[in-house]
């Protein structure tokens, strides 16, 4: 069945088969022996699976610029493979971090790691999909497992509420995607991005309008005016913005992030954004570039709205989790500015920002999961900001790490977050979006307030009694220290992240032509 060319999809196939083996293994062991607790062993097994996936992916050499397999529905190129490697590494760290949280919370289902693996499979397929059907199926696989992950803490009403909310709104956005792609199929007769690119990429420049148009009325209406295509594209765009939680469509994200168990929130916030942006780039940069040029300004408006919402609504929050959710919303706004520029540098800064967002998000959420109070009620996990008071006295190094990562996300100058943020502002100034960049810089200043407030609570709060935290295991602390030093290293040597994003953008724009 597999021709030798199609062996390039081996990592994904390996992942899928090993998921099924993992299910069989877990079911047989845990059900036979009176519900044996195999949560931890399955977690480590899935770390092993993802590491092997990474190994296979790195061994997949891409000889040519890009090529398409499985009837042109899967594209193998540098963008896809690099971001898949990054996502896999980030998710290995996620697995290591959430292990203790799951033990404390008594989420003793081995299905949890299986669900995460399913979500990862979906995300990897989104990264390399070259076809609307594949993209839809991959998004469904990813979000279906996310719904279940959100609702998995069964004894908590918040978690069930979050799962239901996520499910209904996610199904709504998926139906928008289906509607848009069905109209696209009705107009063009294809769902393949490559064919769509061949049909639509050169429409404006190549068609000679002075020619007698009487024979070409359908062609003129559909292709040149492009009303129906833009109608469909706007639906697809809106549904993907739903997944990214961009401002008018962000309302689900706060409740879902706050209600679902923290380990799932970790995943929702960090992992899937890059894959959705890759899909956006594939649709709107390579297939429908000419059509999106018209409504680039609306995307900019959405981006500014997102930044404003993320910055101002974050000021009100008293819970750490919802604060981080608003911070992730405003970050998506910055990336959307980079996306809307439509230039080479904009694309490069988009990938830069997303890579850094993932790494910094990994740091911040793993520290968040580390901070477990010595409560009598272990069930209470939604931290107030006041819970962090005088963390510097009980665990000075962790407080230092946390504040450094927060300042990096805020974009204070001696951190790597500053470099990518100023990159985005420079890019937007370069395409003369002066007003947009001024507004977003001001909002970035405002949003710095709530990051600094956490630092103030940790270091300078005058409370008589601080909180006590559970001790951290040594291997987890080693992982956190490594992540932190990697973030510091990225500031000293940011060439690494620039180089990779430059290479990705260069190869991507070469294939677009």
């Amino acid at each position: 069945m597999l021709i030798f060319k199609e062996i390039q999809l081996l990592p994904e196939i390996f992942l899928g088969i090993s998921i099924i083996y993992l299910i069989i293994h877990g079911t047989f062991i845990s059900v036979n022996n009176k519900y044996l607790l195999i949560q931890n062993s399955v977690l480590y097994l899935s770390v092993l699976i993802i590491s092997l996936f990474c190994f296979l992916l790195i061994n997949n050499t891409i000889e040519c610029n890009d090529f398409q397999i499985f009837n042109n529905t899967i594209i193998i190129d540098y963008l896809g493979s690099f971001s898949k490697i990054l996502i896999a590494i980030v998710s290995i760290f996620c697995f290591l971090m959430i292990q203790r949280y799951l033990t404390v919370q008594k989420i003793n289902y081995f299905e949890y790691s299986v669900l995460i693996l399913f979500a990862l499979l979906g995300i990897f397929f989104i990264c390399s999909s070259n076809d609307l059907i594949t993209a839809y199926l991959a998004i469904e696989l990813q979000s279906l497992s996310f719904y279940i992950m959100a609702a998995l803490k069964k004894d908590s009403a918040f978690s069930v509420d979050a799962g239901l909310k996520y499910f209904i709104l996610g199904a709504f956005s998926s139906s928008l995607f289906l509607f848009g792609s069905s109209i696209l199929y009705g107009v063009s007769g294809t769902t393949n991005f490559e064919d769509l690119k061949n049909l639509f990429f050169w429409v404006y420049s190549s068609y000679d309008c002075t020619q007698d148009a009487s024979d070409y009325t359908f062609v003129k209406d559909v292709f040149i005016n492009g009303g129906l295509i833009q109608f469909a594209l706007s639906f697809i765009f809106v549904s993907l913005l739903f997944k990214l939680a961009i401002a008018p469509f962000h309302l689900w994200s706060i409740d879902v992030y706050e209600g679902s168990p923290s380990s799932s929130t970790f995943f929702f916030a960090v992992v899937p954004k890059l894959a959705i942006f890759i899909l956006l780039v594939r649709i709107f940069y390579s297939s429908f570039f000419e059509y999106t040029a018209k409504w680039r300004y609306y995307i900019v408006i959405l981006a500014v709205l997102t930044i404003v919402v993320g910055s101002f609504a974050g000021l009100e929050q008293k819970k750490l989790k919802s604060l981080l959710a608003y911070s992730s919303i405003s970050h998506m706004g910055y990336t959307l500015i980079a996306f809307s520029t439509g230039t080479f540098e904009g694309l490069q800064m988009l990938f830069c920002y997303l890579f850094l967002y993932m790494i910094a998000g990994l740091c911040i959420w793993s520290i968040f999961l580390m901070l477990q109070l010595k409560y009598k009620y272990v069930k209470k996990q939604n931290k107030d900001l006041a819970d962090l008071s005088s963390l510097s006295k009980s665990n000075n190094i962790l407080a230092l790490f946390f504040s450094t990562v927060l300042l990096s996300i805020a974009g204070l100058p001696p951190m790597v977050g500053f470099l990518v943020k100023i990159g985005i502002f420079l890019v937007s100034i370069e395409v003369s979006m002066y007003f947009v960049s001024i507004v977003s810089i001001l909002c970035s200043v405002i949003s710095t307030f709530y990051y600094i407030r956490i630092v103030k609570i940790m270091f300078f709060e005058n409370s008589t009694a601080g909180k006590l935290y559970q001790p951290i295991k040594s291997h987890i602390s080693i992982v956190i220290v490594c992540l932190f030093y990697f973030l510091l290293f990225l500031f000293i040597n940011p060439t690494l992240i620039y180089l990779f994003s430059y290479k990705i953008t260069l190869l991507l724009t070469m294939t677009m032509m």
Partner: protein
Amino acid sequence: MIVNLFFYFFSFVLITSSLMTVFSQNSIYSVLFLVLSFVSSSSILFLLECEYVSLIFIIIYVGAIAVLFLFVVMMLDIKTISLVKDSLKYFPFGSFIGIAFLIEILLVVPSTFEAINPYNISFLCNFHLDWFNKLDYFTEIMSVGHLLYTDYLIQFLLSGNILLLATIGPVTLVLIRSIKTTKKQITFKQLSRTYNSVLYI
């Protein structure tokens, strides 16, 4: 002519029943109207000669999903909510969005498809019968199978994965492993309910 009449009839039934699904007060009636809309849309598909899809529509949507809906509606224990207050709260914004999309569709779709296909009115178009095609052809289910197992192989596998996930997920969510916390249905209370007191939205 008759095909056209049937087409209009079924479209009318489809539109009316989907409207009634939204507007009817008793949710049992809503589900039944939903079934009617599925049936009429599958008959439209029959008229368009897509037999496989329309049969699948009937088997899956009417046979499985609508029955499942009925079960869920009977199971939910929601009391009557005042309809007017809620609908007045959401009416302006919802109707604004709905009308905006409707106008957009009405502007875009007729302007795109108003042109007559120039090939149809030219002399190049002759209605000859292609006997070869008539004699030696794939049935629809065969061609669907051919496409699924060759060109769209990876999509087929992906949807299989989705189905696997869809079985694992609900089992994980409802499997009772710790006794004290999960909610259960009281069977007597469940069985003693009647259809007209179930769920008024």
